[in-house]
């Protein structure tokens, strides 16, 4: 007999195998998921979930696909959260502190309660990356927020109404486009290709019989 636990899905009690994830438990209970289920592997943020263990006051957040069920778990899924996403033209904005002031001024209303960090399903230091964004330190904001899956739980807990994942998204794009060092070898290669440098070589490869290609492939030199 499998080891079973009792969980409460949206308040309703079900008995499910203890080995399951929350997502697995919902399906075991009979749910055919549409919302609240995406990559099933912790990368997409579709299955943000809030839970509380019976008898415990603390409200916890997790990804349903990444979290095993526990006895007495009260589970509420958060398949959508209305984040504020400002629109901007990446070609026209610049990586200055003012851009945050213009697009996401609410970050300056942060009261330092740290509820965002405590609720992060990825265990990120959310309040810290918002602090970096406030200062216009986009490189650090990008690094600190990098593993964000944009599930939105942090924002659901924020008394200042900050849409943390969108602030971080902007910071990462600014960092990737404007602040990170340029790759000279990349620009050179794009130019070479535009100049047709490799065309003849490639066309000769494309014209070779398979037997000759096999020879070339089986004896190619492999970089250590």
């Amino acid at each position, binding site marked *: 007999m499998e080891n079973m636990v009792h969980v409460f899905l949206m308040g309703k009690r079900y008995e499910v195998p203890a080995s399951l994830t929350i997502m697995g438990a919902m399906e075991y209970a009979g749910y055919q998921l549409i919302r609240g289920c995406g990559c099933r592997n912790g990368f997409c943020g579709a299955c943000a979930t809030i839970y509380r263990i019976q008898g415990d006051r603390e409200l916890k957040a997790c990804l349903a696909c990444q979290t*095993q069920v526990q006895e007495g778990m009260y589970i509420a899924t958060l398949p959508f959260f209305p984040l504020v996403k400002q*629109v901007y033209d990446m070609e026209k904005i610049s990586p200055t502190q003012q851009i945050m002031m213009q697009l996401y001024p609410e970050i300056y209303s942060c009261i330092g309660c740290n509820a965002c960090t405590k609720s992060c399903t990825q265990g990120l230091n959310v309040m810290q990356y918002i602090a970096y964004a406030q200062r216009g330190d986009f490189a650090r904001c990008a690094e600190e927020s990098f593993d964000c899956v944009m599930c939105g739980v942090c924002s659901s807990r924020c008394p200042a109404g900050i849409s943390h994942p969108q602030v971080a998204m902007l910071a990462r794009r600014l960092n*990737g486009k404007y602040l990170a060092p340029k790759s000279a070898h990349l620009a050179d*290669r794009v130019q070479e290709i535009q100049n047709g440098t490799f065309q003849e070589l490639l066309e000769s*490869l*494309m014209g070779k019989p398979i037997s000759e*290609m*096999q020879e070339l*492939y089986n004896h190619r030199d492999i970089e250590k």
Partner: protein
Amino acid sequence: MYTEQMLESMKKVEAAREKNATLEPRRMTAEEKDALLKTYHPDYKEGEFAILQVGPNKGEKVPTELAALLQGRSRIRPADIDLSHPDYDTDVLIIGGGGAGASAAIEADNAGARVMVVTKLRMGDANTMMAEGGIQAADKPNDSPAIHYLDAFGGGHFAAKPELLYRLVTEAPEAIQWLNDLGVEFDKEADGTMITTHGGGTSRKRMHAAKDYSGAEIMRTLRDEVLNRGIPVVDFTAAIELIKDEAGRAAGAVLLNMETGERLIARAKTVVLATGGAGRLHYQGFPTSNHYGATADGLILGYRAGAKLLYADTLQYHPTGAAYPEQIFGALVTEKVRSLGAKLINVDGEAFMHPLETRDVSAASIIRECSDRGKGVSTGNGMGVWLDTPMIELLGGEGTIEKRIPAMLRMFAKYDIDIRKEPILVYPTLHYQNGGLDIDKTGMATQVENLYVAGEAVGGIHGRNRLMGNSLLDIIVFGRSAGRNAAKTAAATESAPLTLSHVDAFMAALDEAGIDTGVVSPKLLPNYARKK
């Protein structure tokens, strides 16, 4: 977390770690690889394939599960559908909200077309989001598009369509540049040099990455760009049939609101199918690394509309799916783990193969180790071999894992496995659809005008096996070009009356052939709800 039996085996892995870490196992010869694949690769397994009786690929074999869907019943009766009052009217209709669809949307928008995206889940719920390891491009001085071509052509068993592969490798550096200019963060040295590694079957280090969130970083950036441009995205809305016009061209789709069941009609001048892969069909009972919606819908839609499939009988089983614990069974363990130095080790602590053979060869080799050779580790749920992750820190120094593969560290830490200290158990998982719809070099389906296909739904770019990092690349290269070309063709297309007669004709052909597979298709989502 590990069982007694696993810990016993792990002692042998630990004891041999130092020796195994510096060992350079011999690569297999072409003959050895051929024999291995024929004996152990699932693509060669008899009895798992069916011959199509109807449609453009009649007489060819495809996986049994796919055959049932390709020859399944439509979700609509064309006679019930009123095409005269479309709910949406656009130039370019993009079906699918992953990396290929988003890239197509951005470029079609750039080209001045009216464009809209429909996706059955959310924008970004796609295999792109889950691609961990990286994206290839020959942009280093010791590399060239020609070497990239040879690696991919050989790795794909010399079956790729040369004109498509040519485009993949020559447009790769520009694809990286385009992504970087959109703000995608790549791992770089302080001087801007891209940090690149090997993948299985590469002869140069050309794998660009954003830690082990490479696909997620690309996808969230593309999605952000689509939203910034105000391109309409209709989410939780699946395409359930293509609509053609009386000239036989693709001209829209019948849509289904996944939540309310409402049917809607989208009329367009051109259609881009960017519906992705098929992992959730669980071919041969394999677990999958794919996202929830990977059910080959585009192949079904395209096939009914007359588009031909290419290499639909070849699937990619990623050698390293998580084999343990069961909560993450089948989840992807990125190839980058091996790029960074971890080796595959059997129950006796032996490094039984070179860790960077191509994926098909690696998967077959692991299956052999776990079956005929009897050198696998029992997981309670099957078998697996060790992937010795602590080697990474032994070779690259402490902190390498946290810096380069944080997602892997996190995924196992949730089950109290510290991959810096303990190896992990892996077994092949269904990962990628090598085949798909046949396209010409402009991205148009070879048999259906005005139907473009991009991303994993395409067949022929990679041949019969794909190298790591060439899929994130192909969704960008062919997604962008599908968007550009679909916009251009749309501008030159005069609308004609719409029709679903191809659906009637296909259903009539099924009747005539006496085929009833008992399923309706496209499948849209897997059925995981327990039936009581």
